[in-house]
Structure formats: C-alpha cells, structure tokens
C-alpha cells in the first residue's frame, strides 16, 4: 500500500456521514484505522486538537494619498482547527511596546488596528487587541492547507486610521504582525 495521508477532521467527518445504525465509535474507528496502519500519529494518541494558519501574505498599503480617511487592507487565509467544534482562538502581536500594533519609519511610529473574521472575504471583523486572544472562532476548513473544501476560511483586516495617518510624518513605514492560533 502506498503512503496515505488522512487528517484528523477528515477521519471524524467521514464517521459522521455513516448511517446511524452503522456508526462506529471514535475509539472503534481509531482502532480499525490503527490496525490498518493508516492512522496519523496525532490521532492514534488522542492528541488531535491541532490548528494551522497558512496562506498569509504581506500587506502593502502603498502610498496613501488621502490621509483624511481610514486606509484598510484585508486578506483571506486558511485557518484550520480540528477540534470537536473546529473552534480556535487567535492572538496577534505587533512590534511596538508590549506587542502593540505599530509600523515604524525610523523612530516615528504609525499605529494600526487589527480585526479578525472567521469567514473569508471580509473587510471588517472583530477588533483584536495586542496579546489578547480572540476566542470563540470557528473554522470551516476541511483540511490543514485548505487544498480541499474551502480554499480560505478567515479574514485578517488591518486598518490605518485617518487620525493616525494625518499625524504621521511623511515617510515609509514597516512593521510585522504575528498571529498565533490555538485550538479550543
């Protein structure tokens, strides 16, 4: 038999589609798959609460001509969680003091805001505070890299407020935003 990759949630999803009279228990299914030699290690030991964030892209605002309005950029990405509820939390940190969300141009800071949506294609979402997990998110991803099922499952929104832009010194600003996802 050739190599076979089967992810935890896929296994459980297949189990859910069996007819009621033929449902295998989770343990029974695991035992069966383990005996067949195709069960991923993470499932075999019961530690299946795994998550993955991928398909992240850099965010380029470019030259912002109108400093009197908010500048908003969003990107859709793959967020996978294989918990029973497909739930996850996300924590974002920036490069400012205490993980605050700032871009810098030399010593000049330009603060920004972050929002998160657990659905793809959004230009707004729930505000995220630095270093504080945003709980209660649910993923619709069918596998860890979103190469089957939904291709993208969440939206990251970055906002440069007009008030911050109009107080910023002219120049080029750069920063890094780090996202940490945990299962729940």
């Amino acid at each position: 038999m050739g190599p076979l990759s089967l992810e935890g949630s896929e296994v459980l999803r297949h189990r859910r589609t069996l007819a009621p009279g033929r449902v295998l228990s989770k343990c029974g299914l695991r035992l069966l798959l383990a005996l067949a030699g195709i069960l991923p290690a993470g499932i075999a030991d019961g530690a299946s609460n795994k998550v993955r964030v991928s398909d992240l892209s850099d965010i380029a605002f470019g030259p912002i001509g109108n400093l009197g309005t908010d500048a908003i950029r969003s990107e859709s990405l793959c967020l996978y969680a294989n918990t029973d509820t497909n739930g996850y939390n996300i924590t974002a940190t920036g490069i400012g003091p205490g993980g605050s969300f700032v871009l810098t141009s030399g010593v000049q800071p330009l603060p920004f805001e972050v929002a998160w949506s657990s659905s793809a294609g959004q230009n707004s979402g729930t505000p995220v505070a630095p270093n504080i997990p945003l709980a209660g998110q649910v993923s619709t991803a069918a596998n860890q890299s979103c190469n089957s099922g939904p291709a993208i499952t969440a939206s990251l929104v970055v906002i440069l407020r007009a008030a911050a832009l109009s107080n910023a010194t002219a120049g080029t600003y750069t920063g890094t935003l780090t996202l940490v996802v945990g299962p729940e």
Partner: protein
Amino acid sequence: MVDARLHRRSLACLLALLANGAASAATQGTLGGTSSGSVVINASVPNRIELTGLTDVSLLNQDPTVDALSAQNVCVWSNTNTKGYYVTATGSGTASAFTLSNGATIVPYNVEWAGSSGQSAGTPLVTATALHGLISTATNPTCVAGPSSSASLVVKIPSPNLQAMQPATTYTGTLTLVVAPE
C-alpha cells in the same frame, strides 16, 4: 552534468524571483497544538500640507493718517520631517498684484507672513514669489488639537495709499495663498 543542472535550476529560481518582484516575507504556520504565522505590513505617507483658518479681511472706515492693518492667525500643517513649508501669495490685480479696486481706481496693499501665530508683522511677501524656510508647529492638519494656529497673515494698507483712495467707497480684492511642503 549535475553541476550544470543545479546551475540551471538556481538560475530559474532567480529569474522566477525577479519576475515576481520582492519575495514575500510572510511566514506560514505549521500544524500543531498552536500555529503561528506573520505578515509584513508596509505603508508610505507622502508629503502633505494644509492651510486652514483663513478669514476675510475687512478694513472699513480707516483713518487715512495711519496705516490700516489686519492680522489673523491661520493654521498651516506640514507633515514633512522638518514640518517645513513655503508660501506663495498672489493678488487679484494686474499680473497678480496685491491691489484692491472699487471699479474705477485701484489701491495697492502689502502682505506679510510670519511663521508663528499672534504676530502683527512678518516677512513681506512679493506676489507670486515663494517665501521659503518656514516651519509649522501644528500637530494636526486643521489645528483642532495641539496649537490652534501656527502662522500669521498680515494685510496692510499704508497711510499714503489710504489717502489716495476715494472716500466712502468700498475697495475689494482677493488674496490667494498657496502653501507647499519642503
């Protein structure tokens, strides 16, 4: 032969990189108990400037034996590193001269600019000629926060000019100011 193949692959990678522009710095998470990724965010803010707080100048019923003067505080905001700017003024007279007219005759007036507020005198402006080297203290584009004004505009009609005006008639003109960052 292997070396040649490696060189070709390296060259192909380099060409692909150049074709796609700068490489992405974003990092992707891996499957695990937690997963982390990061994105680089870039933005640039161009040079911008704003002039606000201007009010019309009214010099009515002036004593022709003394200069008539009107000074007003205005807000100039510049976002350059130095907060620097220059100002250029033009009048509505012939060749943009600083003149007022009552339809029959004209009267010249003077314009002065100070890079701080609360001034009743400043540097004389020449029409259509930039006054450079000014620095703004404004911290907000319209001065609604921080200093409420950052420059002074002074309009003056010298006494001899007043004496040349026809009495009991109103002279009108428009003064246009253009500020630019530097």
